[in-house]
């Protein structure tokens, strides 16, 4: 459905690429995660894909049609949730959604229903200037759904949210996926990516360093291990055994046979550990 081919972007004009030869495909109805630390080139890629930034080199295709050839009607089909809260602070939350809805040529969702969905119905008539950061994040997310988009671009949709609200937003994203929406999720939250994405790409310094399903990435690049809690001479002991290591395997067998095992858990590497292993850097 969406095909990004050999994408480059240079802000400086000195061949210092913020996005450097990035290629990937997104299937219809797929949630594709674009993961990387701040400054990795995630938002630049998203801005090129949504036509906010001019395509310099490479190609972005929607159903084989280039983004450069897209007419303004293209925006009837996409929804974008920005990381920064680009709202009219002098308008209320309801007014922000109502007037934004009026800019589309397609049937739009009821602003009050959307506010209800993100838990802001009670604050609908409050000016956005008086909203907290988390409330603004939720309203920006709600706004991205106003035109019932076929493709959703979500840039850090759970950033700055408390765990309960973040979980609600993740449920809404899952619901949109079930409805057949294609979702491009840009984040450095590995937990959200692991929970939501069908496939993820790791982006580092403008380049994709790995791309696969979260499970495959963890399996391929992580080390499988088992954590065992057993009764020792001085109380409960906890040990980790790596299953690829022969010596660890022998030790694990010994404990199972000779000790009183309390708990035993298999443990894969997390996406974050995998990212660190592949790039040598953290995600913040």
């Amino acid at each position, binding site marked *: 459905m969406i095909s990004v081919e050999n994408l480059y972007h240079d802000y400086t004009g000195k061949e210092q690429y913020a996005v450097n030869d990035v290629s990937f495909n997104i299937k219809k109805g797929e949630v594709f995660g674009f993961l990387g630390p701040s400054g990795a080139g995630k938002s630049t890629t998203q*801005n090129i894909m949504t036509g*906010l930034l*001019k395509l310099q080199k490479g190609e972005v295709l929607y159903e084989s049609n280039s983004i450069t050839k897209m007419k303004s009607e293209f925006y009837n089909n996409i929804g974008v949730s*920005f990381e920064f809260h*680009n709202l009219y602070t*002098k308008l209320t939350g309801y*007014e922000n959604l109502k*007037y934004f809805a009026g*800019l589309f040529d397609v049937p739009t969702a009821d602003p009050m229903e959307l506010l209800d969905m993100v838990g802001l119905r009670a604050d609908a008539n409050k000016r956005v200037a008086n909203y907290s950061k988390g409330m603004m994040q939720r309203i920006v997310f709600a*706004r991205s759904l106003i035109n019932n988009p076929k493709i959703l671009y979500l840039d850090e949709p759970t950033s700055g949210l408390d765990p309960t609200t973040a979980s609600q937003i993740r449920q809404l994203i899952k619901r949109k996926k079930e409805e057949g929406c294609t979702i491009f999720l840009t984040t450095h939250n590995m937990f959200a990516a692991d929970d939501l994405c069908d496939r993820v790409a790791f982006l580092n310094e403008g380049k994709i360093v790995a791309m696969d399903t979260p499970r495959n990435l963890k399996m391929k690049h992580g080390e499988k291990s088992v954590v065992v809690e057993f009764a020792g001479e001085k109380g409960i002991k906890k040990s980790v055994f790596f299953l690829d290591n022969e010596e660890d395997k022998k030790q694990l067998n010994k404990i199972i046979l000779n000790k009183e095992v309390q708990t035993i858990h298999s443990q894969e590497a997390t996406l974050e550990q995998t990212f660190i292993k592949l790039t040598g850097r953290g995600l913040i």
Partner: protein
Amino acid sequence: MSKLFNLYVQDMKLLLRNSFAWLMMGTIIIFLILYHFVITDSIEHEITMYFVDNSKGHIMESALEGRNVDNVVFISNIEELEQLILDKETQVGIVFEGTIHEPRFTIVHGENMREENVNLIRASLRNMILNMAGVSVDAQYSTKFLGDRVEPIPQNKMLIPIFLTYEVVMFSFFLSAVFMFEEKAEGSIKAYRITPTGTAIYIVSKTLAFITKGIVYALLLILLTIGFEVNFLALIPILMLGIALFGFMGMSIATFFSNISEYIFVVMGVLIISMLPIFTILIPSFSPFYIEWIPSFPALYSIKEILFPTGIDLGRQVITLVGMNIIAYALCHFLVTKKLMKEGA
């Protein structure tokens, strides 16, 4: 059309919640107070003339006493007169010598007396002597008026077209930039860019909002000063064209700046240049060739003519305003698209 209306309603709400727009209302109230209670219809300069009549038989003194002339005081000698002038620099002293048939006047005045006023006094004295000699001054010259004779415009009313042009019309220059800077700072312009609405509706909705507010203010101002005796059908289109023109100009220039503190120097520059046509209105002999090309000129000239008609055809000014609007809109559309709607283009 529904998109335009939707955005227009949004912009009107933003305008009503903008403190700068209320600042404009405040200045209108101040103007109304000044108009009604401070600025009079005209300024009258009362100049007392001190005469020293050194003629034989004091013929001037006798003649003027018989005519019961105000603001004339006769004193006995030149030294006293000079001392009076030194003490009161705005006063004028006249020394009369000789006879009616061979008069000699000496006008004594301070440094601040304008040459035009001195010449007026000379002419008055000449007429006075001719009248005293029994010569009819009116028979010596005649006055021919070209066009309809109109009542002079009272000075407080003369301020209305100036205020309308520089407060109501030109305020859109400032306000359009304020709007744009707020949208840049909030990032709401970025959200607008991911809608299928486009540049034209963005510009036109804002311009319509400025026009609405400007017309309301203008009507309020006119009804509370001149009243209903104004050709509103002619005035409103001119105000609309003027407000739109300065709105387009404000938006065009604001695309190059990111906040009001950077932009304020531009506002000052544009304001100074735009105020030049005021001198043409107040002093008609000041009309350099470039004055008509200053965008505020056709607006100011037309508003003055509509409020205080002298029979001048405004066709040329209207065509100039329309032409300027077309050019300003084209430039505004190009710059907003290039610098605001296509980041990195």
